[in-house]
């Protein structure tokens, strides 16, 4: 695990408070970086707040405009109850408020479902999708929900530490865990416990239980889509991603070797390179033919 990956677990809000208020009165924290180029919006997931993306996007900021934000009930955004579907509405509201007509969307883990819902509801506003470690399956939500339920049970019976102990060896790859040793584990655990309350984690996990994979929704997505995953990702496999890509109208798969569920943590350079190549391919009008996966990923 690289230093920037570990550093990124820190809640480094710098006092700047740009907030967008949604139609139902929920204030969302956001950051915009970069002066020119296509807009790339990073949709945070349960454990990754908007500020963390700074550490994974330094190589993109010169040629792209980057938007990151905290979901409601996360980080510096307000806590306001809502169902999972509300996140796509929040994203639309934020883009409206910032005057962004069209954007690339980067989702990770459960937030790939937010991106999917947004792409179905607002296809004209999505230039492309980058779905990182997507827990999507043509076979439905059963497995993902069982995993989320086990995480919620761990949280409710053992608190945030039990949850962390459950997810740590899942979300990080074998290489990262071996190289980080107990020092990385203890430091990340301490920061995880300091940053996350039981109530906040429980609310987010319950939302994840609500989300439905609905494979048929994938067939309705016209946006060019990159399915990006580590080959040591607990939540998916290359064959599953190929099957998902087969449902999408225009998609490619790229696999990062010796990497777990969070490629931006473990392999930030490869992660950013994949995004840059994907955006360039789509902007050039030749996707998927002009997109060449870095490793052994399969062009679909």
């Amino acid at each position, binding site marked *: 695990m690289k230093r920037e990956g570990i550093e990124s*677990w820190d809640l480094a809000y710098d006092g700047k408070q740009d907030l967008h208020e949604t139609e139902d009165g929920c204030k969302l924290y956001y950051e915009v970086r970069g002066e020119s180029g296509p807009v790339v919006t990073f949709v945070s997931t349960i454990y990754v707040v908007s500020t963390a993306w700074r550490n994974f996007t330094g190589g993109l900021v010169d040629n792209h405009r980057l938007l990151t934000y905290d979901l409601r009930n996360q980080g510096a955004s307000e806590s306001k109850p809502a169902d999972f579907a509300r996140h796509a509405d929040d994203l639309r509201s934020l883009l409206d408020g910032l005057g962004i007509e069209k954007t690339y969307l980067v989702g990770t883990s459960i937030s790939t479902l937010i991106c999917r819902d947004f792409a179905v509801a607002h296809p004209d506003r999505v230039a492309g999708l980058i779905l990182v470690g997507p827990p999507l399956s043509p076979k439905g939500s059963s497995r993902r929900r069982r995993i989320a339920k086990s995480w919620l049970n761990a949280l409710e019976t053992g608190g945030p530490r039990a949850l962390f102990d459950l997810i740590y060896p899942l979300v990080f790859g074998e290489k990262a865990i071996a190289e980080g040793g107990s020092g990385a584990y203890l430091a990340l655990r301490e*920061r995880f416990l300091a940053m996350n309350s039981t109530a906040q984690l429980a609310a987010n996990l319950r939302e994840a239980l609500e989300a439905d994979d609905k494979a048929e929704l994938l067939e309705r997505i016209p946006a060019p889509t990159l399915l990006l995953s580590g080959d040591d990702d607990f939540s998916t496999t290359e064959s599953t991603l190929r099957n998902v890509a087969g449902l999408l109208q225009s998609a490619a798969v790229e696999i990062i070797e010796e990497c777990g569920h969070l490629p931006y943590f473990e392999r930030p350079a490869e992660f950013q390179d994949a995004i840059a190549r994907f955006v360039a391919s789509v902007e050039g009008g030749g996707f998927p033919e002009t997109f060449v996966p870095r490793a052994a990923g399969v062009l679909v």
Partner: protein
Amino acid sequence: MTDDILRRLVALLERVAAVELDGRPVTETGPDSLRALGLTSVRLMEFLVAVEDEFDLIWDDDVEESVIGSLEGMARYIAEGAAVRAG
């Protein structure tokens, strides 16, 4: 013994986290004292590695969070380990 270990821990912390502390001495050593400093994960990891070197110990995953989050807790943990090693 624990007081001496605590003093060495504080000195070590003030050296490793000099940038974050910006010259401020570490005065709080009770429960959550280390957590309250809000060190980055990297700095905390560097401190843990420095503690390993200073006290000739190796952390393991089963260390309680009260040990990692508190200077006094860490000092007690180190003293207990030293006592066990001394027989």
